[in-house]
């Protein structure tokens, strides 16, 4: 069984309350950091830990922190990105709902490291009940002297505020989040300047994901080097994976990134295999924006190595034969699933969520959705497939923020790996509506189970 660092105590009765959390060893990292370490030493430990941001891009957190500008007399801000709107990703919700003090603890230590006296949790509006849970936890932390003025006599003041978003996926993008936090329309900003130089109210700002900030707690408790020993290569520590789709046990799992994709899908400790003995067709392993992979490339890399559940292995081969760890939204498709239909669903999502600032994303996402709708509903042409390919190619890399890429990649990967399915839809407009066409895309090495 893999090591648990974040969710180890999540199931302890009453862990949501301060008393139980403290009794279980909570807030030890704050004590350790505030009493024995300078802010720079905390950053140093995070660097040593090799922690990569858990929000999607996987950028090294310690390095990101060290980019923070520190001009005299200007406040700095830490913002926790709890917007979590990527389809398939629901890990942060679990963490905040069941063990809220872990996030608050991580936020206090991180605020100390970064010198943020006002720290914000920007949370998606739909997580209304979690707002109450977090505010309760903040109130308890305040009451017990972990927040407020002169924490533990260090002279450091810190307060945490919860800000609710209004349910726009784009507000998860860090610069759009900052705009929204400032009370403006959630349009991404053009970079540079980066938030580390000009963020919230033009002050230096770090935006980090919920899981990233929670991971700072075990990093300080264990020490960066110990933390780095967990996992493999540049995928250190543990990672939360939210698994859904055609699996027997959907849910949030904490893994230590040394297991294989196959083990994750089939072992009883995790997803527990595919319902009704069906075969595996494909999987989107990192949230809806990362490329989908067919079974043969999902379980093995193009070189024939076992595909592992970590950043490097999932990305192996680039987008031609690989994908991304992303935010860990693991979506499994069984043999009955229609890739065209799922691609349309995603295209509809990205069209709806585009902020509309840049022409390729604003117009391209809508265009892709309309073409996919035609193909899906039996009105497509063969040339539509090439047109889709061309449109996604002209969006990717040409936009202000990565939402354009997030809209382009699923379409690109679906055509790249499942082109014959698109063609089949065009050639068999009537039959394709039954969706029970069982195209042989799976190269599942396992014997077909007997139902």
């Amino acid at each position, binding site marked *: 069984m893999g090591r648990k660092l974040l969710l180890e105590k999540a199931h302890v009765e009453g862990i949501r309350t301060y008393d139980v959390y403290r009794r279980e060893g909570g807030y030890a990292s704050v004590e350790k950091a505030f009493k024995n370490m300078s802010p720079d030493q905390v950053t140093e430990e995070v660097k040593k830990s090799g922690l990569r941001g858990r929000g999607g891009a996987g950028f090294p957190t310690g390095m990101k922190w060290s980019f923070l500008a520190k001009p005299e007399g200007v406040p700095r801000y830490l913002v926790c990105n709890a917007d979590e709107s990527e389809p398939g990703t629901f890990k942060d919700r679990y963490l905040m709902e069941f063990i809220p003090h872990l996030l608050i603890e991580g936020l206090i230590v991180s605020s100390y490291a970064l010198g943020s006296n006002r720290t914000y949790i920007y949370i998606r509006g739909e997580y209304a009940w979690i707002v109450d849970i977090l505010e309760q936890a903040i109130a308890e932390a305040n009451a017990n002297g972990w927040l407020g003025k002169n924490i533990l006599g260090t002279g450091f003041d810190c307060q945490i505020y919860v800000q609710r978003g209004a349910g726009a996926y784009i507000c998860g993008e860090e610069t759009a989040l900052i705009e929204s936090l400032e009370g403006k329309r959630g349009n991404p900003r053009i970079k540079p300047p980066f938030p580390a130089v000009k963020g919230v109210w033009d002050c230096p700002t770090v935006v980090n994901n919920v899981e990233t900030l929670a991971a700072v707690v075990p990093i300080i408790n264990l020490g960066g080097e110990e933390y780095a020993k967990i996992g493999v290569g540049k995928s250190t520590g543990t990672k939360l994976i939210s698994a859904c789709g055609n699996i027997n046990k959907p849910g949030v799992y904490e893994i230590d990134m040394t297991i294989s994709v196959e083990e994750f899908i089939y072992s009883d400790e995790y997803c527990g295999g595919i319902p009704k003995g069906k075969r595996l067709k494909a999987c989107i392993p990192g949230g809806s924006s990362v490329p989908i992979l067919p079974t043969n490339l999902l379980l093995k890399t193009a070189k024939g190595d076992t595909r592992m559940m970590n950043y490097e292995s999932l990305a192996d081969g680039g987008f031609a034969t690989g994908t991304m760890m992303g935010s860990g939204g693991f979506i499994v498709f069984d043999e009955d699933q229609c890739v065209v239909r799922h691609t349309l669903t995603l295209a509809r999502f990205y069209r709806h969520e585009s902020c509309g600032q*840049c*022409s*390729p994303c604003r*117009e391209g996402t809508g265009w892709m959705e309309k073409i996919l709708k035609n193909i899906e509903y039996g009105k497509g042409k063969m040339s539509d497939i090439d047109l889709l390919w061309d449109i996604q190619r*002209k969006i990717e890399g040409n936009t202000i923020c990565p939402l354009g890429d997030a809209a382009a990649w699923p379409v690109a990967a679906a055509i790249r790996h499942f082109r014959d399915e698109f063609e089949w839809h065009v050639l068999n407009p009537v039959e394709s509506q039954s969706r029970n066409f069982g195209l042989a895309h799976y190269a599942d090495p396992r014997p077909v189970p007997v139902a």
Partner: protein
Amino acid sequence: MAEEKKLFKVTIDNITIEVEAGTSILNAARMIGGDVAPPAMCYYSKLKGSGGKCRTCLVEVAAGSTADPRPMPKLVASCRTNVMDGMVVKNITSERVIDARNGVVEFLLINHPLDCPICDQAGECHLQDLSYDHGKEGTRYEFNRRTFQKHDLGPYIQLHMTRCILCYRCVFTADQLTNKRVHGILDRGDHAEIATYIEKSLDNDFIGNVIDVCPVGALTDRTFRFKNRVWFLKPVDAHRDCPKCSGKVTLWNRGDEVYRVTARKDQWGEVEDWICNECRFEKKQTSDWVIEGPTKISRQSVISQGHYVGIKKPKETVVEVMDGRKPRLLMDIHDVSEVNKPNVDLSKIAGPAHSEDFK
């Protein structure tokens, strides 16, 4: 001693110039001029924070700087990327740029009808120029375009949302020039639209400038729209003593009549000085103005059609052949036809000339 300005060497499409640190790639390219300057639909040098949105000005950075000569992986918006010393930029010499710009034009034209002959902006539309220069003759888009009702935004301005390309220029203008902004962008993605929150009128003192900054025919001047076409008008620089603005304008005349007043624009189509509503909408008598002289118009512009300067006439070969004698007029057309009476002054006719005018 004057502070010495730091200069950066930048090479754009194989032409090297030195520019001040802090100059954007677009502005550096504009200093070179010609085709090296990328097109710009949303950037407006006079508006703070503009640019970066339309993506028409994307360029390839083949080398970041002398210190770090690595190429940039993605194309960058030249209007929002500053030059570095030793930077090498490819604009029209880059196939990637040409391809991407082609795509941007196609995207922009999806929800912009190509009804140029009936749009009031015809002849002054930057999107029309862009699609001529960088677009294709056809479109691959086969779906219904979005439609909107046209809106009167108060007494002076009309909005045709069908033509808007969401460049945000008018929003920045209203934000930066007027004290109470009542219009902005509502909704998201391809359903985003310019709106005044519940049919408000735009009547701030400087709001008329949104018409000048709009690169397409989405915001038009209600006191002028469809009263004439730009190529029938003669632009004249003029000024008046205005307490609110510089009073420096361009009058668009036909004969002695002032059809339209706009701010003066530079070679990039950008306003030189913002003008107030009074100058723009209410001063339409020649006597309101001190005339300075004809406005200089680019030779390529449809507006300069027929107004040639410095032309060289070909040699009169008939005269030469006839040893300097003038040819004899064999027939005067006016003796036999009613058409084109020399006593009818075409510029005095309100509309295009018609057979009725020559009766």
